[in-house]
């Protein structure tokens, strides 16, 4: 009787089942967004929500910074000491380098243009793979520009909005970068694996790799300049059936403390 009544009066049927219709509509809207991530309309929605989200987080970022202050202070003192020691070694190397350059009559070197930016939001709710920074298209930022910190490569620009950008960190499993070992020039691909962390893949079993070897970006990448530090070899293993080594890296950048970053805006060589 009730069903017959509902069928005869579609409005009543719709009202009584409205939660199901709302759920279906919400699922359809979400699926549309999921399958159309790169559409301008979706970008516009994302930009609108990101503006309010980032604005809120920027205003109250002092809470997080205050909590991190003591830890940062200790770490910075330690780092300053390390830097002082490294600086004295580098001075020696610089003088030596200068002498050798003069001998080789070296004229040009690559210099890069940087833009310094601050991290506004960290995507830490479920998957810590991206951050939002306060540089956007108004600052000359474009997608795929490399993002670095003094410790090394952090990621690349993923999406650009007028006043902010989303940075895809190396912790994103879709992030790959061509790399090599600094010492013996063994080449491979660095990517993130959920199970083991940062991995250097495609390194032949015959290659000589040792623990603590430094891994840097290779000269065969179209996006990243060569020589940017990525990490250090932490673990090496070999699988029986594989032609390649399994190399796990310790990232150079501490992603949990990412506050200031630099975007490399120009890679073009410039005469010295």
């Amino acid at each position, binding site marked *: 009787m009730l069903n017959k009544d509902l069928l005869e009066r579609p409005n009543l049927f719709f009202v009584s089942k409205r939660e199901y219709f709302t759920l279906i509509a919400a699922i359809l809207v979400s699926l549309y967004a999921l399958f159309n991530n790169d559409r301008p309309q979706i970008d516009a929605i994302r930009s609108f929500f990101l503006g309010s989200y980032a604005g809120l987080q920027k205003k109250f970022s002092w809470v997080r910074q205050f909590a991190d202050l003591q830890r940062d202070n200790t770490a910075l003192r330690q780092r300053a000491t390390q830097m002082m020691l490294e600086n004295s070694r580098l001075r020696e190397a610089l003088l030596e380098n200068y002498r050798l350059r003069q001998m080789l009559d070296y004229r040009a070197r690559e210099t890069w243009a940087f833009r310094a930016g601050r991290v506004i*939001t*960290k995507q830490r*709710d479920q998957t810590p793979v991206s951050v939002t920074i306060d540089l956007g298209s108004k600052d000359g930022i474009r997608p795929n520009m490399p993002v670095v910190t003094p410790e090394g490569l952090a990621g690349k620009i993923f999406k650009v909005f007028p006043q902010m950008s989303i940075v895809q960190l190396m912790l*994103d499993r879709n992030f790959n970068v061509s790399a090599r070992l600094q010492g013996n020039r063994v080449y491979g691909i660095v990517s993130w694996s959920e199970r083991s962390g940062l991995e250097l893949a495609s390194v032949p079993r015959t290659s000589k790799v040792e623990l603590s070897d430094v891994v840097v970006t290779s000269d065969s990448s179209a996006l990243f300049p060569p020589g940017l530090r990525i990490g250090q070899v932490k673990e090496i293993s070999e699988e029986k059936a594989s032609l390649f080594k399994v190399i796990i890296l310790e990232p150079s950048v501490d992603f949990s403390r990412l506050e200031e970053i630099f975007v490399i805006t120009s890679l073009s060589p410039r005469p010295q």
Partner: protein
Amino acid sequence: MRIFKYILMFGILTLLQTTLIPLLSVQDIYPDLLLIGVIITGIRHGSTPAILAGCLVGFVQDAAVTQLYGLSSLAKAAAGFVAGYFSREKVKYNFLVTLGVVAATALTNSIIYQTIYYFNSNAGAGWVIVRYILPHFVYTVVVGIIVNAIWPGGLWGKS
């Protein structure tokens, strides 16, 4: 008027989620306060407002991620439906019921989000369950119970 109250509530929860919650992380696992907001909406007002709130909050939360924009809104809309299914109009309050509603909602959200997120990765199903689904679920339930104790009127409010 009520809608402004809920906008304010989600504003406060977003603020806490982005400032204080990161300090409570355990092995990169964070409780989801915005989901607790969706649960409160569902219990107090039923499925429809909870689905809409979940969908909108999900879009805000997803704004800063590099991939799968819309995944949080999908998971939270489904979670809102589950929370609203056990609204106070249909179920009588007691602590175990509250625990059950929070658990069912958190599990729905966690399963949908993590399953789709790791669908195409090299991580096995067992590992995703142990490393992400269960810890997120447990942490969110624990925080849900704490919020139930300290939030004015608890998750159920005054019926």
